[in-house]
C-alpha cells in the first residue's frame, strides 16, 4: 500500500476511506479502553476469581484481536500470509501447551 500522503492529491474517495478508517480506529480504541476498565473494576470490586479470571482472559483475547486486525491492519488485503503464520504459530504453541499440561504435569 503505497498511498500518496500529500494532502492536495487525495481525492474525495480516498478522503472518505480515510475518514472511515479513522472512525474504526477510534471506536476500537475506545472499546479497548472500556474493556481495560471493566477488567480493573472486576478485580477492584472483589468478585469471585472463578468469574474474574475467565472474563479477563476473554477480554484479553478480544483485545489482541483488535490489535492485530485494526491497529496492525490484518483486516486489509495482502495480509493472508502473516495471518496464516500467526495462526500457525498459535496452533503450535497451543499444542505444546496442551501436551505439557496433560502428559507431563497432570
Amino acid at each position: 500500500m503505497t498511498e500518496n500522503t500529500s494532502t492536495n492529491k487525495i481525492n474525495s474517495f480516498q478522503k472518505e476511506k480515510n475518514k472511515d478508517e479513522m472512525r474504526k480506529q477510534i471506536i476500537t480504541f475506545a472499546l479497548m479502553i472500556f474493556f481495560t476498565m471493566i477488567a480493573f473494576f472486576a478485580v477492584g470490586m472483589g468478585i469471585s476469581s472463578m468469574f474474574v479470571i475467565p472474563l479477563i482472559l476473554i477480554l484479553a483475547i478480544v483485545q489482541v484481536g483488535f490489535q492485530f486486525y485494526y491497529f496492525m491492519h490484518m483486516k486489509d488485503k495482502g495480509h493472508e500470509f502473516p495471518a496464516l503464520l500467526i495462526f500457525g504459530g498459535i496452533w503450535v504453541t497451543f499444542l505444546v501447551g496442551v501436551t505439557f499440561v496433560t502428559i507431563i504435569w497432570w
Partner: protein
Amino acid sequence: MSNAATQKRALSAVLWDYLTTVDHKKVGILYLIGGGFFFLLGGLEALIIRIQLIKPENDFISAGLYNEMITMHGTTMIFLAATPLLFGLMNYIMPLQIGARDVAFPFLNALGFWLFFSGGILLNCSWFLGGAPDAGWTAYAPLSIQSPGHGTDFYVMGLQLSGAGTLMSGINFLVTIVSMRAPGMTYMRMPLFTWTTFVTSVLTLFAFPALTVGLFLLMFDRMFGSAFFDVALGGNSVIWQHLFWIFGHPEVYILILPAFGVFSEILPTFSKKRLFGYSAMVFATFLIAFLGFMVWAHHMFTVGLGPVANSIFAVATMAIAVPTGIKIFNWLFTMWGGSIVINSAMLWALAFIPSFTIGGMTGVMLGSNVADYQYHDSYFVVAHFHYVIVGGVVFALLAACHYWWPKMFGRILHEGMGKLAFWTFFIGFHLTFFIQHFLGLMGMPRRYWVFLENQGLDTGNLISTIGAFFMTFGTLVFLVNIVYTAIKGEKAPADPWDARTLEWTIASPPAFYNFKQLPLVRGLDPLWIEKTEGNGKMTPAEPLDEIHMPNGSILPLIMTVGFFTASFGFIYQTDHKAWLIAVYAGMALAIGCMVIRSLKDDHGFHISKEELEREAD
C-alpha cells in the same frame, strides 16, 4: 613476477569478496562449501563407526571415543551438513526461480551463513579441547547433564549459534517469497522447489525456537546451576525430550521437503512433461508440514506417556503417509508416458523413489506404538532414518548438484563419473542399511560400542561395513568429478537441460544482478510456455532501467567472531571466572557491530543503464 603478484592480489581479492559478500548466489556457494566440508567430516565419522563394528568385540576405537563418534556423526550430518547444503541450494536457486535479484535481507543472509559456519567450527573445536560431546545427537537429559568435561557445552553453544543462523535464513526466505516474486509469478505458478522452500522456512520459523529454548535450559543447567532437568531438585528430564522432538520432528521435514522440491524439478525436466498434479503436490507439502507438528511424541513411545497419548500420536504419524503417498504417485505419473532422459541427475531421482518408499514404509511400522516397543533403539530405527535421510535428502542433494551445477558454476559435471558415483553409492547405501533392518529385528541395539560373536550379528555387520566403503568410494568419485569439472569440464549454455523454470532463462552462471529486466511470467513453467507458445525467450516486464543493489559488508563476519568468542567464554567460565572477560568482550564486539549496522546508513549502489546496455545478453 608481476604476473604472480597480480594473481596473488586476485586471490586475496576473491577471498575478500567472499568474506564480505551479501549476494545470495555467493552466500549459497559458501553454504555449499561449508556444508560439503561438514558432510565429509560426518562421513569420516560414519566410516570410523562402521570400521569399529566390522567384527565382534572390535577395539578399533575406545568406548568413549565411539560415543563421541556417534554423537558427532548425527549432530554434524543433521545440523551442519544436510540443513546447510539444502539452505545453500535454496539460497542460490529460489530467488532465480521467482525472478528476484536477491533475497529480501541480503545482510541477514550473510550473517546467517557465518553463524552456521562458526557454530559448526565451535562444535568441532571440542575434538581438540578435551573431547567431543558424547551424549548422543539427541543429548537426552539426564545423560547430557551428567556428561563430564566440556563436550556437551560445545554441543549446546555450537547448536545455539548455527540454529540462530538457520532461523534467520528461514525468515529471510519467507519474506523473499512473499514479497519479491516477478510480475505474473502468482503463488500457484511458483515452481515446486520454491514452494517447498517456503514451507520449509515456515517449519524452521516454528520449530527452531523450541530447540533454542531447550538448549538455553540445558545451558543454564550445565553452566549456571539451574535444575530444569534435574529430578532430584524438582526438575523434569522428560521436558528436554519433548522440547527436542517438538523441534526434531519438524526438522526432519525441514530436510525432506526441499528434497521433494528438488525431485519435483528434475522429474518434469527430464520427462519433458509438466509436473503431474501440481496443486495436489502443493497441498500435500502443506499437509505434511501441518501434520509434522503433531507427531513429535512418536520418538518417545517408550517413555511412558500412557496409552492415550501414544495412540493419538501413532494415528497422527500414520496419517503423514497419505500426503507422502500422494507425492510418490504424482512423481510416478509425471514420468508416465514422458520422453525420459536418463542422466546422473535423473538416476538419483529414480533411485530416490523406491529407496524413500522403503524408508516411509518402515516409518509407518515404527509409527505403530505397540510395535515400536520392539523396534525402539534398535538398528531397525537406524536403518529407517538412514533410508529416509540418505535415500531422500542425500540423493536429492547429489541430484540437485548434477542438475544445477551448470547454473551455479557454468560447467556441466562429467556424466561418466556421475554415473560411476551413483552406482557405487547406490549399491553401497543399500548394502549398508538394508541389512540393518534385520540386525535390528534380531535385537542389535543402536549406539553400542561392541557386539558379541555368534549371536547371528557377525555377517550382517560385515556386509554393512563393506557397503560403507562403497559409499565412501562413490563420494570420492564425486569429489574427483568436481575437481575435473572445474579444470576441464564442458562449458554450460544458459539452458543445458531444455528445462522449464526461470533460472534457466539467464546466463550460467548468472550475472550478479540476476535479471537485467524482470521477466513477465505467464504461467506455471514460464520458460516452457515461452518455448511452446512464444519465441523461447522471456518477455521483459519492465523497461531497462537502473538496478539497485546492496553493498557488501564485513560486519556479519565480525559480529559472528564476537558471538564465537562469547561462546567460548560461556563454556569455560565454569572453570575460571576470568573467562567471563571473553563473554563480555565477545558480546561487546557483536553488539557493537549491530549498533554500527543500525546507525550507519547504507543505501547500496546503482548499476547504471549504460553499464547494463554495454553487456551483451
